């Protein structure tokens, strides 16, 4: 089996995640889509690690997971603090600043 199907799948997952970030309105869902993108990156890392026969890509996937966990913590803290002050988790309601 060649590596292309894995890479193609990773590209598709990345693009689906990117669409989600652009179209979804709820901050938590936007966040899930970012996780999807990071997962697509990890799939590429692991595939290339397999193709090149070294473990660096797997180490990278491992690191990305840790970073993603930290990112989730930070993101949810921001979302929760916004919700507590104004009771909404919608990206569009945050509109004091002009886009």
């Amino acid at each position, binding site marked *: 089996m*060649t590596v292309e199907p894995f890479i193609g799948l990773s590209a598709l997952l990345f693009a689906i995640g990117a669409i989600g970030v652009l*179209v*979804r309105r709820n901050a938590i869902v936007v966040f899930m889509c970012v996780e999807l993108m990071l997962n697509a990156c990890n799939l590429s890392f*692991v595939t290339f690690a397999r*193709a090149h026969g*070294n473990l660096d890509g797997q*180490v990278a996937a491992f690191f990305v997971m840790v970073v993603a966990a930290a990112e989730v913590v930070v993101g*949810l*803290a921001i979302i929760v603090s916004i919700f507590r002050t104004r009771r909404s988790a919608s990206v569009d309601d945050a509109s004091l600043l002009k886009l």
Partner: protein
Amino acid sequence: MTAVTVVFAAMGLVALVSAFLVVTSDQIIHAALWLVVTLGAVAGLYVLLAAELVAWVQVLIYMGSVVVLLLFALMLTRTPTGPGSATVTRNQPLATVVAGATTVALGAVMWAGFGGEVIDEDEVRVGTAARLGDAIFRTWVLPFEVLSVVLLAALVGAIVLTRRGER
């Protein structure tokens, strides 16, 4: 058609469909649960690619804690979770164009870029905990230590930002 191909096709299809449902699902809770399915399918692909430890970590950290955290956030913010709760913004057409172009470009580039390199089935370096540990604690020791700092910073910052009352 080998067994590997069949498993890949099945897992890949599950991952794609569930990822699509994460993005389109009308209810936030469903989106979170479909995310679990995507992550599980990707973990299966890791096993296929001989990345044992990464697959397990994916199951434990991503499916086990990240998604649970997301669900907790949904509860904490009491976000409406019924049908229609997860509406979409108006820049849908733009996003579709952008993302379509991205997929085509990325896919084409990667396809062309890795012209037919075959995974050698005989020469497998399985990513066991021992091997990864060896790599992490020698070559990658400094980034790894700094990574622990990321977690500490995120932890402290999250407490600061969400604390209420006077302790």
